[in-house]
């Protein structure tokens, strides 16, 4: 990006760095590894400037400025980590923590749930200096099975309100009162089910304190083992959202949206976020079945017997009625390899084109 024939640059912690018109100081600093702390920031949302942790010194400005809401300008001289800024951040963290019942929550709460605890450690801010009243009223009366609403751990960063409005366009979450009495709520203060909420879970995933939590994942908090994640694609509609499946041992314990997923950029819907445990349902087929010659019922069988039975019956059909008498239907919910092998079976095996998939139904 050129400006008056020269690259746009500013001075960041003594170093001359380039930036693009429209970038904020926070974005420029992030690109250069400055690790400015924030609690109200979500890269997908409009900058909010609420938590004041991202303040930096800007030469010529009387007070420190919030880097998330300040656009970079040519020639600016910015200091992100001066002693006084770091003291200010530590005090802020101590004050923020003082309003919450818990400062440490299980990571199963959600994607961003460790942000506050991480900053408390970084600033050594678990001092309890400001211990006293806690703010926020939890809603254990909301019996929904997905979203824990534990506002006693809320710091009023408004990320849930903003993700619901800006990212989802649902406007299900709102704010009541001001200052210390700020309360995150829904329209008419009721249960989420009676609001515009679609249970997409985005509020959970952006919450930096675990005030909002993924109840389905939390139900698995006692499953032994380390949590591992595997990147895959949601099994439902054709949008193809990327997800990180959380597992412990052989069990899926939850789903995280992939913030860098090319199709969804961190967004999910209720199905992709919460409808994963069908995989472990006791109804899953775990052996082949064949129809018993005597009873006429399906009964479990070995792979050998089932493959023999299927091949035998198919071969008989081919012998008696010709290879044109066999038809294959592939699935729109199985991977390419399944559909490819089905058409290969029909084409390379039988030499016909009697193959289709379920898109006509």
């Amino acid at each position, binding site marked *: 990006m050129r400006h008056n024939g020269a690259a746009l640059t500013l001075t960041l912690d003594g170093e001359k760095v380039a930036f693009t018109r429209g970038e904020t100081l926070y974005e420029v600093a992030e690109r250069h590894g400055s690790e400015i702390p924030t609690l109200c920031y979500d890269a997908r949302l409009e900058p909010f400037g609420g938590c004041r942790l991202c303040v930096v010194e800007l030469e010529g400005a009387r007070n420190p400025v919030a880097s998330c809401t300040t656009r970079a300008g040519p020639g600016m001289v910015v200091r992100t980590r001066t002693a006084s800024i770091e003291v200010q951040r530590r005090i802020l963290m101590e004050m923020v923590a003082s309003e919450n019942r818990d400062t440490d929550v299980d990571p199963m709460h959600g994607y961003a749930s460790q942000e506050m605890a991480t900053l408390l450690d970084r600033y050594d801010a678990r001092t309890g200096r400001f211990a006293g009243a806690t703010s926020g009223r939890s809603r254990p009366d909301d019996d*929904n099975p*997905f979203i824990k609403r534990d506002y006693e751990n809320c710091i009023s960063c408004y990320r849930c309100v903003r993700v619901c409005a*800006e990212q*989802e366009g649902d406007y299900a979450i709102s704010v009541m009162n001001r200052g210390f009495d700020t309360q995150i709520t829904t329209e008419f203060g009721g249960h989420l089910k009676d609001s515009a909420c679609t249970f997409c879970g985005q509020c959970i995933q952006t919450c930096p304190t675990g005030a909002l939590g993924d109840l389905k994942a939390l139900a698995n908090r006692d499953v032994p083992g380390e949590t591992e994640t*595997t990147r*895959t*694609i949601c099994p*439902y*509609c*054709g*949008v*193809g959202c990327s997800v990180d499946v959380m*597992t412990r041992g052989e*069990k*899926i314990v939850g789903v995280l949206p992939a913030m860098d997923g090319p*199709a969804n950029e961190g967004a*999910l819907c*209720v*199905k992709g976020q*919460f*409808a*994963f*445990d*069908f995989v472990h*349902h006791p*109804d*899953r*087929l*775990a*052996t082949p*079945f064949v129809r018993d010659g005597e009873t006429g019922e399906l009964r479990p069988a070995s*792979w050998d017997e*089932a*493959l023999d039975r299927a*091949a035998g*019956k198919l071969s*008989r059909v081919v012998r*008696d*009625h010709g290879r044109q008498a066999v038809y294959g*239907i*592939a*699935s729109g*919910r*199985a*991977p*390419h*390899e399944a559909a*490819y092998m089905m058409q*290969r*079976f*029909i084409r*390379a*095996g039988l030499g016909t*084109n009697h193959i*289709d*998939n*379920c*898109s*006509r*139904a």
Partner: protein
Amino acid sequence: MSNPLADMDKPDVIFCIGTNMTECHPVAATRLKRALARGAKMIVADPRRIGLAEIADVHLPIRVGSDVSLLLAMAHVIAREGLVNEEFVGARTAHGEDFLKHVERYTPEWASEICECDPDDIERAALLYGGADRGAIYYTVGITEHICGVDNVQSLCNLALMTGNLGREGTGVNPMRGQNNIQGAGDAGALPNNYPGFQKVTDPAHQEKFHKAYGRKVDLEIGMTKVTALDLCGDRIRAMIIDGENTLVTDPDRNHCEHALKSLDCLVVIDIFMTETAKVADVVFPATAWAETDGVCTNTERRVQRLRAAVPPPGEARPDWWILSRLARRMGWQGFDFGSAREVFNELCALSPLYNGLDWDRIDRGEYQWPVPTRDHPGTPRLHEERFENGRGIFKMLEYRDPEETISEDYPMWLTTGRRLPQYHTRTQTGRSDGIDYLLSEETLEVHPDDIVRLGLEDGGYAELSNPRGCVYVKVRGTTKSPRGTVFASFAFEDVPVNVLTGGGYDPVTQTAALKACPVALKPAGTPPALSQAGPETGAAAW
């Protein structure tokens, strides 16, 4: 989709038709909402007052199955008002003049008699889309699941061609695909007319290519569609292998379907659950599920992405490709010695021009959208940028056709079907995931309050929904989401098998079933029977 998902927040004017996106593709819908927040306008054509209609600038509550009339009239207005993109039409299309002449007679007044929309609203919609710098069309199976599905899609293409809304950012004609790999099933060649990569089976060059690859000659004739095959079960079709489809419940005319599958000499089903379809099979093979299977899928914007196994499958479940290749070997066939999903996918890539530039490793991060013809090709987020596949975009001279079955004195209500946000298809997955039933635990029939009064129904009471194919009992829910004369239910719940009723014809080209427009009779049912059954008189199966 002709355009990437990332384009969805870029149009000036959005035209959604036959797509209940906030419920069926919720994450894509969030992009449209962002476009609206940015100032874009939106037209929504749908018989029901769906979520998108609530936030639209113009809602056209068309009668089910009348899309062509609406789209002809919109073309008429665009032509009449001089909003045709002459440069685009001249440089990139064929039969433009004929088309503009063709639509002269199709006024909004004419269309309003058919689609039952206010002619002024049709006019407004046409002016909005026609006047857009970036106009984008989005549709789903509300467009295709009609006897005139192809005509509907071509009508949309006509609009995009006449306004030059193709091949640019924030434009396009964009179908939203309904299953996570329905696009991929077609890409991989699971179609009766195409080899992998949509290579026509009737082209001698393609035949030669696959003869060489598979070591066997494949018939020159196009195969049957699934619809024809189901019609010929027990006759010319004697055996079926069905992978991961609950055909019995999802296909139209359930009784016909069940009869067809039961008349086979051999039915082999591969699935993860004992579905209604698996229950009538001779052999059922247990497949690995999502999160247990390594593989590849392609999304609605043609993005080729990796599926990865995170947990082991239950018991002896195996990947579909393994099952089918081992079955092929058991048939005594050569060339099915695959050892991994990687090997299978790489063979597909080698044989499909759309995937020639890809392989298992290259799609690791999902950055490619097909076509990717060569190794040095960056992929194709946007189709038709410079030219169309076959040279010029061809205008089609279409006429409106009535659905095969229309409402009558005996069957005076339209039934239309679809999905609901929390539940997916026949609930084989969502019905087995904890908590989803908290959001939606039973099916209800959406009926306009005036119809409830007129037909003597009770809001919350049961109704009998019937036509000559069968009868379904369902709880009634009064809502102005349904227009007068049209009722809606999803096919998610097994105790409300609405596909007992559907099945009034198919598109003659694609043989896609007319699932969206079905005349029915509707009357109060008193207390509900245990489970809806087929056969309006006897309550017994109809075969």
